[in-house]
């Protein structure tokens, strides 16, 4: 039974990773920037989720507000932080991004306090009995469902709509895509909106699972999400999904079986290094 329990834990954690990392993949695919500040947008989503739920009592409204606000903030980050640095070494954008991330973590702490906020009346806490004696809260199931739904929609949009085709074209070869009349600028803004909105949704869900938002909640996602998109082969939506779920599961099993020798992060990165040594371009790299 332990194995099944761990598998479920891993899948829930993996779904959260997927939601956070997917937005990052969208940004990375187009700009080739390691966007650390993505985790700050995730934190912003968490705060908005708690604040709006506590103010209005509607969790659904909170998710929507968080997704839209965070999405727009993401577009602003692109406009004012990354766009002026596009021709530069990606390292410059990376350090700018880290600076932005540190500053926003501090801003959350100064504005909302170091101890964080909680839901006054946390929604979706009913427990559902699964097979045997394993039960899960609705919130956990929601995380998995939300991840699956959002990812499926995104996957479908990228193959079935003109915007999706434009997006994939811009990822694989920007100059050629431009020559075909695709407005790359528009695609970039759209990507930042969608990617950031997904991070916002993830923030709301994580805040719900822990019933806590705190200034440092983005610390782990800031680097773990980067590891996931690299593991998935950078810029590949399907790869990101596979990487996020496998990392979630490996961490769940690893902390039980080899937790005496390595901590959670080290297990994740040991896996990452082994995979990259065998497949230097990630799990699902083309060619």
């Amino acid at each position, binding site marked *: 039974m332990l194995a099944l329990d761990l598998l479920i834990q891993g899948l829930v954690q993996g779904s959260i990773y997927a939601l956070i990392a997917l937005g990052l993949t969208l940004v990375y695919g187009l700009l080739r920037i390691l966007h650390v500040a993505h985790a700050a947008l995730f934190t912003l989503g968490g705060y908005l989720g708690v604040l709006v739920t506590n103010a209005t009592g509607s969790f659904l409204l909170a998710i929507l507000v968080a997704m839209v606000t965070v999405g727009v903030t993401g577009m602003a980050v692109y406009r004012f932080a990354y766009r002026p640095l596009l021709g530069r070494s990606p390292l410059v954008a990376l350090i700018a991004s880290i600076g932005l991330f540190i500053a926003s973590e501090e801003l959350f702490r100064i504005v909302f306090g170091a101890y964080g906020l909680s839901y006054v009346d946390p929604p979706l806490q009913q427990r559902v009995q699964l097979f045997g004696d394993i039960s899960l809260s609705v919130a956990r199931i929601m995380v998995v469902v939300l991840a699956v739904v959002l990812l499926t929609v995104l996957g479908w949009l990228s193959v079935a709509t003109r915007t999706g085709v434009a997006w994939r074209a811009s990822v694989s070869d920007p100059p050629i895509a431009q020559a075909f009349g695709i407005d790359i600028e528009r695609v970039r803004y759209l990507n930042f909106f969608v990617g950031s909105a997904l991070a916002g949704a993830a923030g709301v869900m994580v805040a719900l699972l822990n019933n806590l938002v705190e200034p440092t909640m983005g610390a782990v996602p800031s680097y773990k999400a980067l590891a996931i998109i690299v593991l998935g082969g*950078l810029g590949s939506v399907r790869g990101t999904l596979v990487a996020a779920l496998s990392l979630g599961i490996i961490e769940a099993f690893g902390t039980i079986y080899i937790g005496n020798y390595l901590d959670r992060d080290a297990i994740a990165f040991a896996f990452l290094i082994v995979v990259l040594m065998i497949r230097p371009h990630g799990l699902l790299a083309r060619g």
Partner: protein
Amino acid sequence: MIYEMVVVTNMAIAILFALSLNVITGFCGQVSLGHAAFLGIGAYTSTLLTKSGLPLTAALVPAALMAGTVGFFVGLAALRVRHDFLAITTMGVGFLFVGIVRKQDALGGEIGIAGIPAPDFGRPGLLVLSIVCAVAFGAFTVMLKRSWAGFAFNAIADDEDTARLLGIDVPKFKLWAFVIGTAGAGLAGALYAHQIRYIGPDSFGFVESITVLAMVIVGGIGSIWGVVVAAALLSALPQWFQFVENYKLLLYGLLLFTTMRFAPGGLASIVDRFKNRSARGS
């Protein structure tokens, strides 16, 4: 005086540490997001040695050797991956180091190692030793940059494939960059451990790796004196911001961001700009 001595010693160690990363990232163009691990390897190696009775001066070389040896193997692994894959692989090495140390009782585990013996030559001696090490390593990198190896590093940083076409043995030079850079970090780690006299897994984490990378980029990638100035400034910054304790990190973050946003070439490019302007004026 003690306060000033501590600040300047820290500065010298930070400069040495940043210069060591500058060989890998600045000269050879290989990003490392896990350089603090090698500071840690040097710190732990030297601590184990001095705790068993060796003087610090005798522990410096083993610390550098140990870090350089691990750096060699990380360099070998780094040959397999490029660009952002390399950045994340080295980040992984950093997390792996911290994760292993945390679980090793022999290395103090989670709690770390306290009561590291003070060097028998005291604070002023450690200050002098740190400055000597930083200056020596700095001079060595100046020589390195002007040598044939420096040219090869530069070519690899510019365009690896072209460098290979020119007949440059790319793997060999990359490995050298890693060995020299990580050995320098190991040396810095030995000094660091005996300056603070406490080390723990959190002293060598992701934040420290980012901080040192920030010094290299803010200084201006590859520019030796730019990196020296940036390392000196950024290492002392938290102390200067003491008067705004609550906003210290906020300012630090904003400073990193605005420097990159408005001077993407780092300090070196700002000075170049002034030079060009005055040259045109005259």
